[in-house]
């Protein structure tokens, strides 16, 4: 056990900070053209991604030809921390960089890597992940979108929903049913689909917080024709690849949740004293106690994350990380709820941006995006109960 990182890790951190100081996008650039959707790539983000790729800072753990520098997992951790501290998004297309590009590198043909993965990594394109459907959210294996092989082409019909960034993406990593006659999870394939293919219709779903920033979409597929060469990996092996794809980000996904919570906590601790001073002594004591409890959660989330990460580095597996997804997103939800109550009627002012400041109702509403998406908290609890605790399936 160690409280501090080794000197070599701190040296790596300093090297990145020096690079970042020279190459970071400015606050003005980011504010003038914000990343309004998870596949919208503003010019400043495209330039920044390209610089990171060229200098080996895009995915430090990868080899140089893929935008990395063969860094270890602990180095990657401090790299992500520093980006977060600097309030710079590592990418404005998280599914593209985090899931789709690495999956293509693992399973794609040389042509697919050249034409789809590399442009993503160089910040030239953005991609969306076509998984969820109206009847296949938590139960992904139930997806119905059909791809039928007709000669050298797939003909695809169906509908996707909750597709982040489909309104700006260049292509979709599309999960389709290619064999309806086998057990549900055995007949799924992944097909690369340019979003401008005839038959593709995208309808943005505006979110609860404000209609200004649509990120989620419905995607309708009517007789979409794509060449068979767009198949990723083996036919009907999409389920296994999906599990592999999601694992790419899973080892670090806790960190995003924890850092989000820490940012919110930091903001609350700055704003709270002035609000507390205006309260009666008994009210203040209750509010301070609640915030202290959330502070315990914040530190606990980091400790749990670090411990699970150490376990992952050592053994290559830490199934309890499902816990971190649920925990870190739920405590942030609790925090924004407590903060909104502390801010009283001021929490009802709107127009503080997509996520709002911590004491706004908007901030609280936004948190549901993370407790529902990418496997709801309830699904995470099932995973823990069955895979970690060994409780029997119903």
């Amino acid at each position: 056990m160690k409280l501090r990182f080794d000197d070599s890790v701190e040296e790596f951190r300093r090297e990145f900070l020096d690079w970042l100081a020279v190459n970071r996008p400015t606050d003005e650039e980011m504010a003038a053209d914000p990343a309004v959707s998870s596949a919208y790539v503003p010019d400043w983000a495209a330039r920044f991604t390209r610089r990171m790729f060229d200098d080996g800072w895009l995915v430090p753990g990868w080899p140089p030809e893929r935008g990395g520098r063969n860094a270890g997992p602990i180095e990657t951790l401090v790299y992500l921390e520093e980006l977060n501290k600097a309030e710079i998004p590592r990418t404005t297309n998280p599914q593209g960089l985090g899931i789709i590009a690495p999956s293509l590198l693992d399973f794609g043909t040389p042509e697919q890597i050249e034409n789809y993965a590399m442009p993503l990594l160089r910040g030239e394109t953005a991609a969306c992940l076509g998984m969820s459907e109206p009847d296949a959210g938590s139960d992904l294996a139930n997806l119905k979108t059909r791809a039928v092989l007709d000669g050298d082409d797939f003909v695809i019909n169906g509908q996707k929903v909750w597709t982040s960034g489909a309104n700006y993406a260049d292509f979709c990593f599309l999960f389709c049913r290619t064999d309806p006659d086998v057990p549900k999870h055995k007949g799924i394939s992944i097909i690369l689909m340019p979003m401008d293919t005839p038959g593709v219709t995208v309808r943005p779903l505006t979110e609860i917080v404000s209609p200004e920033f649509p990120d989620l979409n419905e995607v309708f597929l009517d007789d979409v024709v794509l060449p068979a060469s767009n198949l990723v990996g083996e036919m009907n092996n999409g389920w296994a690849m999906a599990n592999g794809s999601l694992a790419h980000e899973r080892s670090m996904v806790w960190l995003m949740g924890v850092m989000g919570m820490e940012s919110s906590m930091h903001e609350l601790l700055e704003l709270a004293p002035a609000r507390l001073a205006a309260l009666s002594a008994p009210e203040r004591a209750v509010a301070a106690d609640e915030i202290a409890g959330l502070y315990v959660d914040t530190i606990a989330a980091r400790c749990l994350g670090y411990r699970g990460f150490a376990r992952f580095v050592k053994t290559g597996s830490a199934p309890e990380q499902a816990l971190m997804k649920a925990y870190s997103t739920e405590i942030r939800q609790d925090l924004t709820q407590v903060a909104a109550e502390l801010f009283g009627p001021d929490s009802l002012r709107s127009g503080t941006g997509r996520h709002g400041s911590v004491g706004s109702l908007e901030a609280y509403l936004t948190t549901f995006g993370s407790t529902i998406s990418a496997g709801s908290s309830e699904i995470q609890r099932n995973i823990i109960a069955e895979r970690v605790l060994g409780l029997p399936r119903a």
Partner: protein
Amino acid sequence: MDLELSDDQFALRDNIRSVLEGSCPLSVVRAIYEGEATSAALWSQMVELYWPGLGVEEDAGGLGLSFVEVGLLAEELGRAAAPGPLLAMVSQFIPMLQQAGDATVLAAAAAGERVGALAYAEGGRWEVDAVATTAVQAGDGWVVSGTKDAVLAGATAEVFAVAARAPDGVGVFLVERDAAAVEVGPRIDPGLELADVVLADATATLLIAPGPDADAALAVVAQCASVAMALHTVGACRRIFEVTLEYAKERVQYDKPIGSFQALKHRFADMYLAVERANAVGYYAALAIAEDDDARIEAAHIAKAAAGDCQRLLAHEGLQLHGGIGFTWEHDLHFLLKRAKSGEALCGSRGFHRAQLAASLGLGVAA
């Protein structure tokens, strides 16, 4: 930053666990509860294994391990609901002697030859401000007067390290058992050997002179006591979790194990989180103490507060999910449950530690 136990630490934990499983099954705990046995035999074995001196420097006669190892010993003692003075020794009395730099008493304590207890808190408060017991110089020595309640291992201790207020501030004094009136009343968990210690002009020797040095030493010892008690509580909760999980896998209702019901699965996931959460911050705090890091003050409050959250959930769910059988004396669950609840009542409650934390975060807000 690495918050995972090392291989050596895991090995030590497994060793402690297997010794306790052999020598201190819940049937032994039951016999002590029912007045048919004492903790003496177990204590002798612990002394033979050098457990009292686990965290004591080698040149003072100890094993030279860190407070992290003390923490894992405390956790395993909680997991076993082990009776006897060891927890008080390693987490309260010995850290006090280490702060004082008293080599003679420390060596005797580390060797298990002298059983001592810390008499610090009054009215359940672990702060220097709360010390009302007085110390007055008398000739070459001192006399102390006052009452310390709920002294851990007070029922069996031969000597007490007493925090008492002198004209120059609070100091720490050693009082032999025969100079004090030790009142042992029935308690919910006899294994903790809690006692009230009443001092009426009790003859005392100076351990740490009144003033800032003693304040600082007491603060450090309070952190050690809180963190070890937090991990002790987590240990009891972990065992509650384990036995409840086993029960849910075996107990069949409506032709299915009750653990297959989603309503219960989610509660088990929450219990698991509560235990892991409190465990992780407990070791974080133990490590901060071991490394004498500035984070230790805040971390100790966090560890004890999280242990409070943990026991609240685990005691409730552990009993509720066992159903009627868990409500009986015949079932062993209540020994663990009472140990977990005792852990909350000792070394500062969840509310106390959250209030301390709020103050340190600037949320006390002077009006």
